[in-house]
């Protein structure tokens, strides 16, 4: 489904990603784990075309989409949930969902609200006035409105209370059950391990480890060195 091959990404002159290669198969939930500043968000942004890579290729559903405009990638079926949330603060919850480009009828507002019932109750409220957890739900809901085949979830549990994190984990599992592939970046390894089947560990812009959850659990060196577990 998603095939990232040897991408190098820069912010201006600073070289952030070095030869990053990763794959997400259909229906798979894959973790992208690493510390703060390791390159997780930049990897997401490179795939989404927000910070286009200078080298390497991004292939999605068999099509080379390297450096495509974000809106084209969304229309091809990649949903992006940024780590800093970025809800449209001036608009109410309903409008945040309404303005999204819907590429099919698979997901609509009703289905999204069924997944996040809490949002239905505050649908007339301005997004800027929501709590952190509500905003996080809204950004996921917003990405779902495009009926994505693949979700890029960038640190969805960051800064949220443990109880809300648990809810979110369940909802993410539901998305997996609905057949959406997910690339999930997390610092919070313990939370991530519950949801993912495979993981990449990234540090200083390089992929340091790839393997199944069991392999990662068994690899004390990687956990200590890059994940501080």
């Amino acid at each position, binding site marked *: 489904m998603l095939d990232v091959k040897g991408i190098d990404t820069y912010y201006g002159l600073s070289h952030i990603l070095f030869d990053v290669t990763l794959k997400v198969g259909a229906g798979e939930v894959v973790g992208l784990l690493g510390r703060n500043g390791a390159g997780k968000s930049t990897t997401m942004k490179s795939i989404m075309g927000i910070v286009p890579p200078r080298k390497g290729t991004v292939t999605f559903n068999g099509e080379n989409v390297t450096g495509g405009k974000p809106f084209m990638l969304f229309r091809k079926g990649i949903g992006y949930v940024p780590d800093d949330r970025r809800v449209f603060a001036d608009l109410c919850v309903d409008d945040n969902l309404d*303005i999204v480009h819907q590429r099919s009828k698979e997901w609509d507002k009703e289905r999204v609200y069924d997944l996040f019932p809490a949002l239905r109750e505050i649908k007339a409220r301005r997004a800027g006035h929501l709590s952190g957890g509500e905003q996080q739900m809204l950004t996921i809901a917003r*990405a779902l409105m495009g009926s994505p085949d693949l979700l890029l979830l960038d640190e969805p549990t960051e800064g949220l209370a443990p109880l809300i994190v648990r809810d979110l984990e369940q909802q993410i599992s539901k998305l997996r059950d609905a057949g959406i592939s997910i690339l999930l970046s997390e610092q919070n390894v313990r939370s991530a391990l519950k949801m993912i089947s495979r993981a990449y560990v990234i540090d200083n812009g390089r992929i340091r480890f790839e393997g199944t959850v069991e392999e990662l659990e068994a690899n004390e060196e990687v956990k200590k060195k890059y994940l501080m577990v």
Partner: protein
Amino acid sequence: MDSILAFVSPGILSQILVGLSRTVILFIVASGLSLILGVLRIPNVAHGSLYMIGAFMAYTVSHLFGGGTAGFWAALVIAPLGVAAVSFVAERSLFQFLYEREHLMLLLLTFAMSLVFGDLVKLIWGAEYRSVPVPAHFQGYINLFGGLPFPIYSFFLLVMGPVIAVLLWLLTNKTKIGKISRAAAVDREMVGAVGINVSWVFAIVFVIGCLLAGLGGVLVAPTVSVTLGMDHTLIIEAFLIVIIGGLGNVWGALLGALIFGLTQSLGILIWPQFGIVFPYMAVVIVLVFRPTGLLKSTW
């Protein structure tokens, strides 16, 4: 209604109303400028040129249609659309490549554009004064409040102001493009990341903003002589209005235009020789106390 005249002298009241009708023109032009400033983040100095082009197009269209009443109404519809077409070409061929540039560059570039537009107007319409006649049924005066003579055309402007304000409110709050543009004003990257082609959204907003400038030009045409240079004074005023109202805030543009228009007309009444100074003093006073403008800026 006689009671109003008992408290306020007819002279002051009619001056206020004339000020308000001037406010309408300022509001229409400034709201377009504010829309573009808020969503596209372009301080478009060439906005005044589109106002001038609107006025000249009104002249041409009204003469094509015989110069009478039909000419005026045709101009009111066709000239703003003509300005919109001009701005669409300018946006697709030039402005769309500049959104990421820094503001100083944009100021210089749009200033250059205003010079280019000015010369184009000179080439097409020449340097003479032109006039657009007031349509027959808007000539003369009506009696307001039982005895206050007031030009019918100014009264028509007073009606147009709220109509445009309501239409703008509907556009920004009730239509999808309005909601998208409000989101894009704050986070255009994220708007792109939910599948919206921001480039076209910007084009549409730019064209709507310029259409408002053109509409202002058409509406002002019967009250002034249409001439080269009418863009310069107006663009300064429009920028001041947008700044005191709050950058990018359409309601700020309304409030700013009210302050500007009323201080101007009342200033003339209080101290005729220095009447023109009053609105600028009002701007200074507002900015001393509210440096970011009266209403919430989108910047």
